[in-house]
């Protein structure tokens, strides 16, 4: 009989031992009983994000958390402020020698976290690897006009462009990595940067721990440690904030959590317009959508206002086109088709689509008006918007089957042009070019709907090469109107940016881009 109990115990012990053999590689949590430094403030700020980074190498990022960590661990040649204007960072000054030459003068007093000095060679290495097709950086498309990079001395970098490229300075905020990364295969897991915080540990899908870089060139950060927690579910993340398990969270958030948090007097809710758009992408290669009348008719059946008000609870505001209100290129005069289903139906009827057989669905020449709707499952708001649009379409005689996939399949369908109408988003549009060029130019890498309009191409090319900002603004406004008229995208909403944080978090101002570099000046009162 002893043997029976023994066997059960044996099984459990074996399992416990295998758990013991692998402990998490993070250090024990620092005691929060202010033994070091001031007792008034905590020595750790806890941030909650929605996805675990895919890597900690900024060149290889495919999700936003990599950027957030990058904003603390690394620095760029410039840093963008709330107005998206480049400010000196690693570069103390720069000059545009001519339309295709940009020179940066670097600070001389900067050290990497491993003690080596920061020099122009690091900048050259970073951008060359980004441009290297075999390296696989998703950012490459933004930097293609860079023809060559010269380093006349240790603290000067010269970028020679193949053609004038107006947005280049804005794009120069990309984080710089050290040359030593070349021989360091573990760099993506153990980054070395020049930023205000040093990397300590990364427990996958759980937490990233950073500690202060006391020799940061702009002064040591105000709080000793930062911990970044991965909490995928929007509502769980908000609960974590309410419970005090994290001090700061920001978009993406579920709109229904916002009013409740606004009433919570322990939490500050900061709401502003953001740098993203959510849009309905019409595939111009799809048989049924090749006819502009069909696209226009459908466009009248999409109720942006209700979607914004009820599904997004006004967290995101109705859009009039692909240019953000935060952008200098924005204009209220850009017009889009309003919600008028009767008019939309009329347009479809006039185009030959009528319900000839009484089954409730429009048809023409024996074929039903079938439009496939799709989006990705990770975003519950888009899923709801999709269902809502499906309902509008169905009530007006359109057969609209829905398919939703997780991002991997969804994006590969988009790239293959295997869709009719999809709801997608675009983030981080810090220059109109970034949100328009590769999306609408013939042959553009993100031009999923295969739009090819020569006048639009001309506009987009001119937008890149013109240096006068008010000129560029006019060009992009024209482009936006054309995009609306031809129904390439119907931009649904402008994404809001919401930051929620513990009211004891001081010294931090949220930025619409979601950038958290200012955390280096923040601290949390006990």
């Amino acid at each position, binding site marked *: 009989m002893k043997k029976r109990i023994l066997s059960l115990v044996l099984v459990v012990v074996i399992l416990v031992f295998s758990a013991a053999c692998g402990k998490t590689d993070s250090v024990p949590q620092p005691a929060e009983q202010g033994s070091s430094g001031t007792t008034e403030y905590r020595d750790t700020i806890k941030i909650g994000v929605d996805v675990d980074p895919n890597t900690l190498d900024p060149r290889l990022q495919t999700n936003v958390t990599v950027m957030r960590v990058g904003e603390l661990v690394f620095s760029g040649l410039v840093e963008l402020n709330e107005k998206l204007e480049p400010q000196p960072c690693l570069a103390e000054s720069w000059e545009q020698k001519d339309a295709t030459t940009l020179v940066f003068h670097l600070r001389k007093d900067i050290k990497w976290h491993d003690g080596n000095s920061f020099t122009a060679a690091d900048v050259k290495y970073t951008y060359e690897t980004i441009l290297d097709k075999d390296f696989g950086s998703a950012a490459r498309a933004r930097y293609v006009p860079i023809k060559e990079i010269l380093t006349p001395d240790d603290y000067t970098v010269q970028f020679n462009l193949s053609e004038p490229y107006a947005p280049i300075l804005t794009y120069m905020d990309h984080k710089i990595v050290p040359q030593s990364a070349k021989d360091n295969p573990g760099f993506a897991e153990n980054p070395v940067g020049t930023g205000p915080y040093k990397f300590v540990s990364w427990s996958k899908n759980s937490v990233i721990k950073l500690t202060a870089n006391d020799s940061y060139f702009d002064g040591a950060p105000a709080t000793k440690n930062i911990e970044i927690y991965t909490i995928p579910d*929007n*509502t769980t993340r908000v609960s974590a904030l309410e419970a005090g398990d994290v001090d700061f969270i920001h978009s993406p958030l*579920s709109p*229904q*959590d916002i009013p*409740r948090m606004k009433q919570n007097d322990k939490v500050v809710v900061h709401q502003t317009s953001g740098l993203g758009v959510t849009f309905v992408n019409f595939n111009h290669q799809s048989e049924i959508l090749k006819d502009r009348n069909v696209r226009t008719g459908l466009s009248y059946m999409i109720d942006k206002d*209700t979607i914004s008000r*009820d*599904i997004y609870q006004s967290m995101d505001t109705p859009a009039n086109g692909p240019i953000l209100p935060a952008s200098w290129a924005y204009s209220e005069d850009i017009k889009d088709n309003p919600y008028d289903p009767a008019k939309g139906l009329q347009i479809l009827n006039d185009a030959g689509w009528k319900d000839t057989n009484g089954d409730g669905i429009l048809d023409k020449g024996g074929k039903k008006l079938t439009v496939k709707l799709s989006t990705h*499952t*990770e975003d*519950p708001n888009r*899923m*709801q918007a*999709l*269902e*809502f649009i*499906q*309902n509008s379409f*169905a009530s007006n005689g359109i057969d609209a*089957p*829905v*398919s*939703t*996939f*997780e991002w991997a*399949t969804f994006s590969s369908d988009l790239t293959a042009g295997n869709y009719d109408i999809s709801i997608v988003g675009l983030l981080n549009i810090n220059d109109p070019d970034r949100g328009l060029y590769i999306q609408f130019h013939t042959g553009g890498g993100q031009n999923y709907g295969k739009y090819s309009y020569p006048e639009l191409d001309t506009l987009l090319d001119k937008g890149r090469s013109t240096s006068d900002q008010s000129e560029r603004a006019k060009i992009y406004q024209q482009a936006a109107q054309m995009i609306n008229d031809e129904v390439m995208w119907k931009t649904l909403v402008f994404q809001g940016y919401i930051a929620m944080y513990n009211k004891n978090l001081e010294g931090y101002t949220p930025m619409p881009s979601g950038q958290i570099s200012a955390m280096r000046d923040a601290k949390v009162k006990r």
Partner: protein
Amino acid sequence: MKSLFLKRLLNNKSAVIGGVIVIIVIMCALLAPVISPYDPYTMNMPDRLQGPGGSHLLGTDQFGRDLLTRLIYGAKVSLQVGVIAVGLAMFVGVFLGLIAGYYGGWTDKIIMRFVDIFLAFPIILLAIAFVAALGPNTRNVMLALGMVYWTSYTRVVRSSVLSIKEEEYIMAAITTGASDIRIIFTYILPNALAPIIVMATLGLGTAIISESTLSFLGLGVQPPTASWGSTLAFGLKFIRDAPYLSIFPGLAIMLTVLGFNLLGNGLRDVTDPKLTRK
């Protein structure tokens, strides 16, 4: 014989309670358009996220649709998915079990290796992989679940076959020259039927839970179809302001599965010779 079976069944508390629940669910599924107070697809944004009570007995969802109606229509979807998934699993599993048990030898070895492979790790992971591969929609969920649950039938049928094979009347049939197929279907299968039916009944419960799990992971039935699983999965997003959206579909799933489990247990009690002794 049959009336004795029925009598015993009706005396079994478990079977009766389970049976009643199952019948209610089936009625909901069949009579959905008749008994629902509202239309399950009409959106009514001003009425969204209303709590239970008033004109909406169980409240409304994020589009203002009546929850009770959605749940009644959901019964249809859940049952459909369950029945087809189990049917598929049964068809494949029973067939493989029959030939594995009857022919033995290499056929048996190969089939049982396959069973081992499928049972070698969490079934749900396999279902996830299958649905991800085929694309998330109702049809593929049924296919994936069918492809994943066949193994239990194979095992059960095979052991039934192995024990029945040795019976005298089988020997007799073989010596009189009856064909294999005839033997399998006329003699062996009917005797193995009881455990199959029990498994199928219990399997319906499992299938319904699996469908809701797949929906929870975003791999299930597509909108606007009203499956319990997807309603629950989406209701979770509103758990603080509208907890009833997660509670009621969960209750529906739980009660239905309970019904099938009780019915299955009752059937097992009634048909299993070992337990009828007491």
